């Protein structure tokens, strides 16, 4: 009988082996997934016990902090947002019932102190259970100006440091109060979609600001220079119908620079047709169109720019859609302010596209650096001399073209830029755009501004906002 006894023991031992594996699966392998599940009371409770790290601006303002309090005799922490609605979409909220958004979500691991050897040290009692501070590149002085300028309107502003990709400001209007979001979410007025971060996930037709992309393709192709000449008759025929200039104007004989300065639709449509979908599409891809910008925000809060229906960028195969229309920023193309800021930033940075980044560094409680964001170049979109040529063309836009309202001549700074006025289905309403950078030599800031549903143009509605934000960025430096 002893053989049977031995075998029965082995069978039961195998059963315990299976239990061991199953337990390991839940506690080690699948643990992370389970912790992220909505409605996990364990996670909610655990988070209340964590002294969560702060979120700070580059100029040292506290955007988010934690405060200890007692609930039923237990020490728990509550989240405070001392700046209220400032940079609300970027900072994001962390709430038991609604989860996390913004930087609160992307850097949760650090804020909650669950990175590296921290959890081990904390559990062994060698370290206090406290998250690390996340210091953003965002400057509240620039952010404040951006939000002031947008107040009362719908729209967005993105300001980048073109040399590093650091986000100096990211504003979306209307906005909401972060403290309200975690204490009484229903009290947020649901008027105009205040929770949506228009800067990174709002998609608008780019209008004429897209001509900077077309110009990049033209210069890079070697077929055109700033001095190439064109003849405008006020109209250009495409398979999808006739293209006319803004206000029905006719420009006659002109250079490429003049075409950009006055935003001549017929010339850019002709260039688009001439370059063809492959060339234009290649430049768009290099700029990052069609893929989600690699910014450190949650995936679902950042949109890729491209065709409205989400298909491949170009070539276009529909009869009512053509490269000529794409080239002037109309048709089925929608873009985010962030993507257009990346376009401006690339020109400003000598043709090199930098990855946009909100976090500048992470520090633990003792002020020791845990992580630092290194500037990361994504793509050489164009040669430096092409970028310089395009910069000169864009300077002309602000000096004497459609973008004069963006000039900062009183500050002694030359601005390069491009306006855009995208038509909407309502003929009296436009999406007003401006993208640009300053100073035009050794730029420190690149911006994109969009104002929704305005009766004015990009030059009158968006360019002044851009000017104010760029001035603030130069002064804050």
């Amino acid at each position, binding site marked *: 009988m002893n053989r049977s*006894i031995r075998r029965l023991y082995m069978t039961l031992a195998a059963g*315990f082996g299976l239990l061991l594996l*199953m337990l390991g699966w839940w*506690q080690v392998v699948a643990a992370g997934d*389970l912790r992220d599940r909505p409605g996990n009371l364990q996670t909610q409770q655990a988070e209340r016990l964590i002294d969560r790290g702060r979120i700070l601006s580059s100029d040292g303002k506290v955007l988010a902090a934690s405060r200890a309090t007692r609930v039923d005799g237990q020490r728990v922490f509550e989240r405070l947002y001392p700046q209220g609605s400032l940079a609300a979409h970027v900072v994001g909220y962390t709430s038991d019932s609604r989860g996390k958004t913004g930087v609160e979500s992307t850097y949760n691991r650090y804020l909650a102190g669950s990175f590296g050897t921290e959890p081990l040290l904390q559990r062994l009692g060698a370290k206090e259970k406290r998250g690390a501070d996340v210091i953003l590149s965002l400057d509240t002085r620039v952010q404040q100006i951006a939000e002031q300028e947008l107040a009362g309107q719908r729209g967005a502003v993105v300001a980048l440091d073109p040399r590093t990709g650091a986000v100096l400001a990211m504003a979306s209007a209307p906005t909401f109060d972060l403290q309200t979001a975690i204490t009484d979410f229903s009290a947020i007025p649901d008027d105009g979609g205040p929770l949506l971060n228009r800067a990174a996930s709002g998609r608008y037709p780019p209008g004429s600001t897209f001509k900077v992309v077309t110009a990049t393709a033209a210069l890079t192709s070697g077929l055109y220079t700033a001095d190439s000449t064109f003849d405008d008759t006020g109209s250009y025929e495409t398979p999808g119908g006739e293209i006319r200039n803004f206000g029905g104007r006719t420009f006659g004989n002109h250079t490429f620079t003049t075409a950009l300065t006055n935003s001549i639709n017929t010339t850019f449509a002709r260039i688009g047709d001439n370059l063809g979908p492959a060339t234009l599409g290649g430049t768009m891809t290099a700029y990052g169109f069609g893929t989600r910008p690699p910014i450190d925000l949650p995936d679902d809060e950042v949109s890729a720019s491209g065709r409205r229906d989400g298909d491949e960028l170009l070539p276009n195969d529909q009869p009512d859609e053509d490269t000529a229309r794409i080239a002037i920023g109309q048709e089925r193309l929608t873009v985010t302010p962030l993507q257009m800021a990346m376009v401006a930033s690339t020109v400003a940075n000598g043709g090199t596209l930098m990855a946009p980044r909100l976090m500048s560094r992470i520090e633990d409680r003792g002020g020791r650096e845990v992580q630092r964001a290194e500037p990361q170049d994504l793509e050489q979109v164009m040669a430096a001399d092409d970028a310089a040529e395009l910069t000169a063309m864009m300077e002309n836009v602000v000096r004497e073209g459609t973008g004069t309202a963006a000039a900062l001549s009183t500050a002694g700074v030359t601005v390069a830029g491009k306006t855009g006025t995208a038509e909407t289905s309502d003929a009296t309403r436009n999406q007003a755009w401006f993208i640009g950078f300053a100073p035009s030599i050794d730029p420190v800031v690149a911006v994109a501004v969009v104002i929704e549903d305005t009766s004015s143009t990009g030059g009158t509605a968006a360019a002044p906002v851009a000017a104010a934000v760029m001035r603030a960025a130069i002064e804050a430096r």
Partner: protein
Amino acid sequence: MSPRTRELGFMVPALLLGLVGAGSVASARTDTLDYGPLPGVAGVVVVFLAMHIALRLRAPRADAYVLPIVGVLVAIGLVELYRISPELAADQAIWMAVGGVAFIITVVALPDHRVLERYTYLIGLAAVGLLVITMVFGTRINGAKLWIQIGGGQTVQLGEVAKVLMVVFLAAYLRDKRELLAIPTGRVMGVPVPPMAALGPVLLFLGACLALVVVLNDFGTALLFLGIFLAMIYLATGRVAYTGFGLAAFVVGSAAVYTVVPRIQTRVDNWLRPFDDAQDQGYQLVQSLYALAEGGIIGPGLGRGFLVTSDGTTVIPALQTDFMFSAVASELGYIGGVGLLLGFLVLIQRGFVIAAQANDGFSKLLAGGLTAALGLQAILIIGGVTRLIPLTGVTLPFLSYGGSSVVTNFVLIALLLIISHRSATGNAPSRRERKRAEQQAREIERAQRREEVAA
């Protein structure tokens, strides 16, 4: 060193575990040390010392490892119960004392377990009887009729007692019939089967037990009884075919039950897709998995997990009974969970060693059956809370809150230790047997003398 002295030494880790654990829980609760649990700890120590002394007097050569392992399991269970609710732990400590008394009575009153063989059918009938009593007089709690209400709101779970009686019955019965059972005389669907005369009563008994537990809506116990039966048939006959046939019959039977009983359908569905109905039917299991995940590899420490909400309810329903393993693994992490599993594995290993060292068939079957019962019960409930198998509400031996389980399992351990002692002494007759044998010898001598005189 004698086994008993070694045993005493091995008890020290269990004692330390209890003290440190209670200290950890108390300090997590109040930020300072609290001496509240000390009388409880002292009480349980006294109970174990009394059990140890009983062994010293009546079964000195019994296995030295079993009681210390039980001590470790009991310490973990009590500390975790104290963490969930000091009142529950105090209650459980009293049940430990009752269990200790039952243990001592068993060791003292039953110096030779082989006397049980004389009452084979009586014990079998008692097992069935207990289940019938539960069926007739039972109180339904959470849909299952498991409890008998006795005075003052106390309830007892007679199924736990029936479990031990059934093992004793099967051991005695199979000891008699194992040769018959081992030689197949016919075939059913290509499977060799033993003569019906030998198999019949066993099947009848098992059928009665299963029918009762199905009526009582207690599938955990049904599964446990079936497992014990198959394990003991295998031990007795050494034939895998019977076990295979039993398992096949079980699978067919389960499929039938699944299609007929909605409650079982829900349970299986929750097992396969617990997150589909995480707020309602799947709630218990999902919360258990969340608690395990939160524990991670090393766990936050005893008293530092999130098991009880601020209003005093447990985050997992039935945490103190069915989900004790989840509670321990949540606070002590994977390391603690593995430790607990290894604790059970070592206990089972000792049980099977005792079975292997026993000198006669009955002892081997009894020890093997009792050990298999313990192991299967642990696998059933731990497998349920870790989603290895569908959830059944059997208790986790020595850890779950509840008197019937504690007392029964203490008696089970007492039986194992008696068997161990008997085999170590080469089945030497007990003092009472010796006296009786001497008396018989004297009587024979006297009779012979009378005959001589008469001649």
